């Protein structure tokens, strides 16, 4: 018998809000974290906009010691540590003392795309300068893919599986499903899951070179055409981290913990880079299968989905995504669920996108609202031909939700879809 799994803690470090209260306020009001970065202009980027969470020196010191911050140069680890520790605290769980046994029932899966690029750059310069001995002890821990999970593991005293996953822009959603399965299979009671992405030009450069970012709004960061807009011309790169504390339902009930949502189920698959799929383009057949498999795994019908938190990046692929949702759910026009995308307010936070967006989805489900999909005054006509325009929420709506879907898609033709539900277990 599989265990039921719920979410009892959330943490977020987003370009438009650090910490759950600020982030919730920001998404409700449609407040954007997208800014102009002079350094990107200096470096001759096409897209000189980005999303970077604002974290003060004092804030850093609430989470990491002076010694840990010495020669510290990994924004992704900082974001991940803050989001992860906030999620743990939000769930009402405590870290163990140094001399106690590890928390055998608490594991961590915290993913990233590339980790610690700034630190890696620093190291490469030293190595090429024949100065490898000057790297000190901090290079490895700050550049390893498992950096966030290792930092969090040490801060918390986690004694179950502590690892990192990587599946491009699906990383955060995949991390959640991996943690879900681990608890469902009875291998842990708590799993702290999430994903992170470094800030800056060394992460964003490759996307700039591929021309998937927008070059049209450098002088008006507040007006970047949002996801599903007819004017969408590419994404703005972002950064940050999102985290969730997953827990078995029985444990959460025993503790009397606040239950944000139940993870009903989900699916992860791959388009195999076959058909229309490639390293960078999705195979629609696989996306539709991922969605229908998620419904099956969750034990629900397509008609039960009331809201979709889309991957929707503000590129030409948005239309394909809507087609895929519509085909997979067999719902269109007025029958289509409500849908929005956070990326208009945060940029595309790459490996962190799935986790930050999941936090936004859970907040909406828990509190009963749908945040505005910003800068979409002019809905793409092809999208408008598939679904009713009022299903694309452009103004904050207070509305009770019970069952919602979140999907993330990424390079390598990876897909992940998860279904959440509120209140059925009580």
């Amino acid at each position, binding site marked *: 018998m599989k265990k039921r799994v719920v979410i009892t803690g959330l943490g977020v470090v987003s370009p438009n809000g650090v910490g759950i209260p600020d982030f919730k306020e920001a998404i409700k009001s449609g407040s954007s974290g997208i800014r102009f970065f002079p350094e990107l202009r200096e470096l001759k980027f096409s897209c000189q906009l980005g999303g970077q969470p604002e974290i003060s020196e004092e804030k850093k010191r609430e989470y990491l*010691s*002076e*010694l840990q911050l*010495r*020669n510290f140069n990994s924004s992704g680890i900082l974001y991940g540590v803050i989001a992860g520790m906030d999620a743990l605290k939000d769930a009402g769980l405590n870290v163990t003392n*140094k001399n106690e046994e590890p928390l055998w029932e608490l594991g961590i899966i915290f993913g990233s795309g590339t980790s610690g690029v700034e630190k890696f750059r620093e190291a490469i310069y030293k190595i090429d300068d024949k100065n490898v001995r*000057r790297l*000190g*002890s*901090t290079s490895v821990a700050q550049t390893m893919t498992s950096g966030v999970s290792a930092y969090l593991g040490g801060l918390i005293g986690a004694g179950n599986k502590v690892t990192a996953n990587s599946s491009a822009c699906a990383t955060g959603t995949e991390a959640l499903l991996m943690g879900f399965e681990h608890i469902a299979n009875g291998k842990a009671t708590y799993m702290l899951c999430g994903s992170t992405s470094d800030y800056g030009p060394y992460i964003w450069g490759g996307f700039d070179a591929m021309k998937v970012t927008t070059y049209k709004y450098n002088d008006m960061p507040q007006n970047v055409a949002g996801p599903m807009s007819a004017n969408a011309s590419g994404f703005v790169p972002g950064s940050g981290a999102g985290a969730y504390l997953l827990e078995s339902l029985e444990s959460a009930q025993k503790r009397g913990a606040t239950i944000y949502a139940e993870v009903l189920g989900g699916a992860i698959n791959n388009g195999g880079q076959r058909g229309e799929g490639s390293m960078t383009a999705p195979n629609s057949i696989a996306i539709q299968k991922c969605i229908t498999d998620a419904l099956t795994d969750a034990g629900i019908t397509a008609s039960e989905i009331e809201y979709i938190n889309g991957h929707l990046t503000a590129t030409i692929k948005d239309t394909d995504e809507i087609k895929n949702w519509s085909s997979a759910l067999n719902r269109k026009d007025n029958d289509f669920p409500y849908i929005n995308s956070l990326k208009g307010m945060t940029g595309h936070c790459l490996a962190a996108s799935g986790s930050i967006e999941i936090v936004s989805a859970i907040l909406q489900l828990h509190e009963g609202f749908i945040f505005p999909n910003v800068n979409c005054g002019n809905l793409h006509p092809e999208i408008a031909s598939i679904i009713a325009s009022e299903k694309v929420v452009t103004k904050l709506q207070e509305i009770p939700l019970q069952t919602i879907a979140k999907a993330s898609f990424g390079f390598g033709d990876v897909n992940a879809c998860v279904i959440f539900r509120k209140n059925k277990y009580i």
Partner: protein
Amino acid sequence: MISDEIYDLLEPIIKTYLPEDVSAIDINRSSDLTRELNINSAHLVDIVLDIEDKFNIEFKNEDMEKLRNVNDAILLIQQKIAK
């Protein structure tokens, strides 16, 4: 440079790497850096780099092997400065 002067420059370097449950007053010349002061052994390389910067010297791999306590560090520094 006499050993007291070296000690005064060395103490703040070591203090940086003390774990939270060890106090700076526990540092003395015979303190074993990893066993008594509980400094993470990975940080020994950082201590050496800080010493190199402070005294403008360079440690070799063999020097590292001799570094156990504060007195070892003072002796090594004195030898390097003298060269």
